């Protein structure tokens, strides 16, 4: 059931024939864990909260700094020095008081911690900024059989893929995990390449849209597909993918 406030709040999207009241109730009953409350996490959290996703978890161990403000649109100068997840929780609760928000003020580095947190949600969004965490999330999501929505960015380029464990290619099928030092270096180089807010805006919005479609059971998803968005040329390319039958993650677990 939807309250009077909810009916009024979501009126414009309920009018979409593929959503309707039934779809809105699906969104209300859905839940998702968003890992990373930075550049990608900002639009993802704002759009999922405003769309009425009933329960949202946020994981991040970082605090807001002035260098975040070129792209992390959840935050402003009053938030500098505060824990991102706490600010994010407060903001999206104010945006939509009808939803429940859980904040996990921690870095996701331990497999066991990841397992405990991911288990509480039926879908996972990877909006992190480093390869080590990305592989950890992919491993645990595949093991727990949770659909995983992955967004990644650098400069003007965004990439999005959707992993349905044991049905579609996982992150490791396409980008096989390498030694820790190489992952660390990759992350560092990615950071040094820089990033602009519009790239995370477009990419994060696509990730949020994939989750909404998945929950509503409408449209087509980026399953076995990698979307590459190039903000310099406005090109959207979709690369078809296939599961690696020898993948060390999804063919074994």
């Amino acid at each position: 059931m939807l309250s009077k406030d909810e009916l009024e709040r979501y009126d414009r999207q309920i009018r979409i024939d593929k959503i309707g009241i039934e779809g809105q109730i699906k969104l209300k009953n859905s839940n998702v864990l968003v890992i990373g409350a930075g550049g990608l996490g900002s639009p993802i959290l704002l759009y999922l909260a405003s769309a009425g996703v009933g329960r949202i978890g946020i994981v991040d161990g970082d605090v807001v700094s002035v260098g975040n403000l070129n792209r992390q649109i959840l935050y402003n100068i009053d938030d500098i020095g505060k824990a991102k997840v706490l600010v994010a929780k407060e903001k999206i609760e104010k945006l939509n008081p009808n939803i429940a928000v859980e904040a996990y003020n921690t870095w996701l580095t331990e497999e066991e911690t990841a397992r405990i947190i991911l288990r509480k949600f039926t879908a996972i969004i990877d909006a992190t900024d480093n390869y080590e965490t990305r592989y950890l999330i992919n491993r645990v999501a595949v093991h727990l059989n949770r659909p995983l929505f992955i967004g990644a960015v650098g400069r003007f380029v965004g990439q999005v893929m959707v992993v349905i464990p044991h049905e579609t290619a996982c992150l490791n099928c396409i980008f096989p995990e390498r030694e820790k030092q190489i992952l660390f270096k990759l992350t560092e180089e990615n950071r040094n390449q820089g990033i602009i807010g519009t790239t995370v805006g477009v990419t994060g919005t696509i990730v949020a849209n994939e989750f909404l479609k998945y929950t509503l059971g409408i449209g087509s998803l980026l399953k076995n597909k990698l979307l590459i968005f190039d903000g310099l040329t406005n090109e959207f390319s979709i690369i078809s993918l296939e599961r690696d039958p020898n993948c060390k993650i999804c063919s074994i677990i």
Partner: protein
Amino acid sequence: MNVKVKLYGDYLKYGPEETYIDIEEGSTVEDVLNRFGIKERKYIIVLVNLKRAWFEDKLNDGDVVSVFSPVGGG
């Protein structure tokens, strides 16, 4: 033999989005990268017929080679 090569993102500067090239029997992924003059190989991802491939993998007539690189920021 003929293979189709598709370039994405950063690699578009080495050629058009899609090209058919004629290569010798027994050519490898590396031979194709050389043909396009692609020197940035540190983080390159090559798919052959939608599956992850490696530089030394031999190609067959009709293969589709996709070349791109991952980004990882958030």
